[in-house]
């Protein structure tokens, strides 16, 4: 009888949408890398990426609308902090989608890392970022503070490493056709990693410190017996 009165839980819908966006980014990164590593048809994968990107943008706009409606209807009962967090997380995930498209753009410009002298190194970073997306999705979905405290420092180490590569290629004497795509690739995976870290800060940091991770300032996780 009470089903018509049951709280339809709008934030639950937003949470599902965020996880779907995360999942779409996994696909987008895979497709973009397959294109630039010469493992797939660039144009076909481009169409699929375009479709994912449109969905990501559409979902981000839907989340904004839903959060606005949620806040307006709930008034004083609104969990404003959670709304701000979800708004920021949606933006970060949407940006990851954009960087995946940028990686595909390299393939569209004729770049193919297959058979390159540094293929193994590039492949290693590709796999690492794919793994990070997977781990971040799991940590965010499960609100796993312990995993987040392990992941964010690891991502920071990775981004420093990508920065070193980026600087190395920017200053390189190698031809632009060799150095530029690699500099760009490292720049893109650095930004993807940084946005992943941003989404993870939403699990452990207070709203005002969103995107600014510092373990000592993190919200204390609730103990099991409290």
């Amino acid at each position, binding site marked *: 009888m*009470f089903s018509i*009165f049951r709280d339809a839980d709008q934030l*639950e819908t937003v949470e599902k949408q965020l996880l779907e966006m995360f999942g779409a980014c996994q696909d987008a990164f895979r497709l973009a890398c397959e294109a630039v590593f010469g493992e797939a048809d660039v144009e076909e994968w481009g169409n699929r990426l375009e479709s994912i990107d449109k969905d990501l943008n559409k979902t981000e706009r839907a989340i904004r609308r839903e959060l606005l409606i949620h806040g307006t209807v709930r008034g004083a009962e609104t969990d404003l902090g959670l709304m701000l967090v979800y708004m920021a997380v949606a933006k970060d995930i949407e940006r990851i989608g954009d960087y995946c498209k940028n990686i595909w753009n390299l393939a569209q410009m004729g770049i193919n890392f297959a058979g390159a002298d540094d293929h193994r190194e590039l492949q290693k970073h590709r796999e690492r970022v794919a793994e990070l997306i997977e781990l971040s999705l799991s940590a965010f979905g499960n609100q796993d503070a312990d995993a987040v405290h392990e992941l964010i420092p690891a991502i920071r180490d990775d981004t420093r490493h990508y920065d070193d590569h980026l600087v190395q290629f920017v200053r390189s004497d190698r031809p632009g056709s060799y150095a530029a795509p690699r500099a760009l690739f490292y720049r893109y995976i650095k930004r993807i990693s940084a946005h992943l870290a941003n989404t993870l800060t939403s699990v452990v940091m207070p709203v005002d410190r969103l995107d600014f991770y510092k373990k000592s300032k993190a919200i204390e996780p609730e103990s099991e017996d409290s």
Partner: protein
Amino acid sequence: MGDNQVEIDDRARSPFLSWGETALRLGLAILFLYVFLVGVKSLETGIKSFGEAFVSDLFESVGNPIAGLAAGILATVLVQSSSVTTSTIVGLVGAGVLPVETAVPMIMGANIGTTVTNTLASLGHLRQGAYFRRAFAAATVHDYFNIIAVVLLLPLEVATGLIRRIATGVADTVGGLLPEVGTGSSPVKSAIKIPVERFEEAIDSVGAGGAMGAILLALGIGLIFAALWMITRQMRIVMSGRIENAINSVLAKGAGIAALVVGIAMTVAVQSSSITTSILVPLVAAGVLTLQNAFPVTLGANIGTTVTALLASIAADAPEALVIALAHVTFNVIGILIIYPWPRIRAIPLFLAEKTAEAAVARRWLVVIYVVGLFVLTPLALLLLL
């Protein structure tokens, strides 16, 4: 999409309603509905205690339809709730001290007066020009619709009694089918009478029998006010998820009958048209809802809010209480039928609201003149002059 079937942990969520809390809040809403009906009965009994001569003198001043309209506006602006005003009017008509023909313009006035709430809500956006323009237009489109409906229907009502005749015809049919809302006795009516009789005994026992009418009247208005506030509060919490979905459906489907139905459903659910229309204002201000799409929701709120008067008529003895409650429904339905289905006529309140909003953005002091002039000074002047 990826293969991950991860769901966000519950710890991340706001505390949503459990089944138990939903049931508790619904139970509270039903309890306060009973308190509301007891309030209407107290008011009716209190008014009757004053005696016919005193009461007929009291309402002589609103015998003029324009004065009745002005009284309806002022009373609603004062209590910020058309539901309180219309329930009180139903109680007065039920007590037999306010004729239906005098009450109809007051009900129309309550329709205009209730729009002050969302107009005031729009002032929250005063600092941001574009936001304020959209917010003020969303608020004033309700004003203009109600004013146009009154301008068209009040003279017609005075000349022909059309609304009263339709309401009487429907009341005769409904009253025969449902004794709770008709003249007959029913368990509901009996249950409502019991506490009022206890109030009377208690007032007598403390030797305040001479002030019986005033005490019951004050008690009745107080109970109506408090009960409606509590019902609205409980139902808003219980129904907020549904309301969010309903607004999302308006965004998806756009303007039209669906939006009108959403407006009716939302308002019936929370028992307040002001809440429905005040929710629309920030959404239009933010640009996610267009004025054209918000307009039918507003009109639906006009119909939805008439349920309160219909509920109030359950408590009344006289069949005229049901007639005035149905007159409220009839007025709003006819108003919508005259204005909404015809694109050229529908465009008038939208145009006026947009122009008023543009003028208000250019000269902010016009907002004060508009609000005070429409909702306070004009009805006050009409009441004093007529």
